[in-house]
């Protein structure tokens, strides 16, 4: 029995458009899982239904063996961090963090001790008396995290907490959240639409699309073995090719199925013919290239089929636009999709 179980969760706002379509999902204790997907796929709705902020039309939510489907939000023992921080502007950092403990009528000395520990955990010592308006976005979000974890919740929910924060700070906060999660061993559900963030943060990713779980797995597994066209397109910068297009590359071969996914970094590019028998080879013309820091992304064309290839940025491996390159790929890197 999993720590958190979603059983047949259905949700629609107007009775017609289903936001969640019969979701079944298990989450183990102590895991940091990510609900990943594009806007409107239902990931936040699923998270909010676990928190009790959203009613579901049918299904069952079980937390630690207890059916909490109809339990009021206040009694679910869940901590949540929102995208917009949602700090109480009329209270300082200390009071924000202590708010839940005061509501729970905890002893004053105990509150002080817990608040102090939470402040130290999120590196906000010295900011106790500051008000939210005095803090940066990153600091505000750390207060929100401290406010949630100080309650020692059964589950910590993070609803796109880093989307309003700049890239550098986001990386710092990602590390902070991971550190706090590992330290407290708290079951955490993280919602994001950023696949890179999901890869960095998660023990396990549940990829959602149009109200269903499209694919679940560990980050590497999801990246290397997408099962559908959607997964391949969302998780990486996969080249999605039809069997007919692949036949253009390799006329002697036949390809069953409807779609194939090829990771851009699995192509081997060479100015000389590739001799390795493990590789299937063809020639392509360089149409364009862009630098993404340490990676060069080439746009190549072979018999009217355009695809991309990524290689590590080494000056000796540069190919000019218009030049013809030898392209090689191992057969196991052609991933047949279920679509």
């Amino acid at each position, binding site marked *: 029995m999993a720590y958190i179980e979603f059983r047949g969760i259905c949700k629609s706002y107007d009775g017609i458009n289903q936001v969640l379509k019969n979701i079944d999902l298990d989450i183990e204790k102590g895991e940091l899982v990510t609900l990943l997907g594009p806007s409107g796929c239902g990931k936040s709705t699923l998270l909010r239904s676990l928190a009790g902020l959203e009613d579901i039309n049918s299904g069952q939510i079980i937390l630690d063996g207890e059916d909490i489907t109809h339990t009021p939000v206040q009694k679910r023992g869940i901590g949540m961090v*929102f995208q917009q921080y949602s700090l109480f502007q009329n209270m300082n950092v200390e009071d924000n963090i202590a708010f839940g403990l005061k509501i729970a009528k905890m002893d004053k000395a105990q509150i002080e001790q817990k608040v102090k520990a939470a402040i130290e955990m999120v590196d906000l010592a010295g900011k106790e008396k500051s008000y939210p308006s005095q803090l940066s976005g990153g600091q505000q979000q750390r207060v929100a995290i401290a406010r949630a974890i100080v309650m020692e919740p059964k589950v910590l929910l993070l609803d796109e907490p880093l989307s309003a924060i700049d890239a550098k700070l986001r990386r710092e906060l990602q590390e902070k959240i991971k550190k706090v999660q590992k330290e407290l061993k708290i079951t955490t559900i993280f919602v994001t639409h950023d696949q890179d963030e999901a890869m960095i943060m998660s023990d396990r990713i549940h990829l959602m699309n149009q109200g269903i779980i499209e694919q679940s797995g560990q980050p590497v597994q999801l990246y290397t073995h997408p099962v559908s066209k959607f997964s391949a397109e969302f998780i990486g910068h996969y080249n999605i090719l039809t069997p007919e297009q692949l036949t253009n590359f390799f006329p002697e071969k036949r390809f069953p199925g409807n779609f194939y996914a090829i990771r851009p970094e699995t192509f081997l590019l060479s100015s000389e013919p590739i001799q390795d028998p493990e590789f299937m080879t063809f020639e392509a013309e360089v149409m364009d290239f862009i630098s993404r820091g340490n990676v060069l992304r080439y746009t190549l064309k072979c018999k009217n089929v355009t695809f991309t290839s990524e290689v590590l940025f080494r000056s000796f491996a540069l190919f000019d636009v218009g030049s013809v390159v030898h392209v090689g790929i191992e057969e196991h890197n052609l991933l047949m999709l279920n679509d």
Partner: protein
Amino acid sequence: MKIKTHFGDALILFLVAAFLVVPLVLTFFYSVFTEWMDILPTGFTLNFYVEIFSDGAFINSLLRSIIISIIPVVICTISILLVLYVITLYVPRLEKYVEILCNIPYAIQGVILAAGVISLYSGKPGFLSNRIFLLVGSYCIIVLPYIFRGLKNTIGALNVRCVIEAAQVLGCSKLHAFFTIVIPQMKRGIISTMMLAFTMLFADFVVVNMIAGSAFRTAGIYLYQTMSKSGQISSAIIVILFITTLIISTLTLMIQNKAVKSTKRREA
């Protein structure tokens, strides 16, 4: 070019200030001189003020005006806050209907309102026909659109739903969160709105005269009754009423500035 703009600004400001201040200054002069037959008045005296303040009826009427203006403002503010709580958190679809309902009094003239209220309730048994009760009720109707608009704009600037959800997750009820988190954040807006509504009611003469009658002497009624006796005394009353309003406004501004200063101090 810049100098010209500054001069233009200063000129406009001067003209507006003169338009507002000159009548008041002249009224004040008229109240501290016994005669004004020539270009300049003659016979400086403060006797008119002494006379007013030695008449207990004036102080009573002033206090009556303040109280009868504050009560409807407080009732209306609390009611609208509760309505906003309900429509923001439970039934947002009712917002447009509440808005229409609250805007109706804009279209009702004071005389029509007073006549309508009297014809509807006079002769009714119990408290319904009590004139003070009717006056408070009518005042509530008059200030309703102003208070609703002011408070709605204030609450609209806050992300109420999200803040209350955050509080709920921490174990707090919606109502408790509304009063401990949302309302403190609305403090400045609430004070401004209440002040605006108060000054409107404080200056009223028509409604109070029609509903409560001249026996219920508010400052406005007192002034009206004095006008036929002495021009100087009524001028002195106008100056006193102006100063009273000024004191109340200043106190309100001081409270607001205190809130702003503490916010700025926090932000510095």
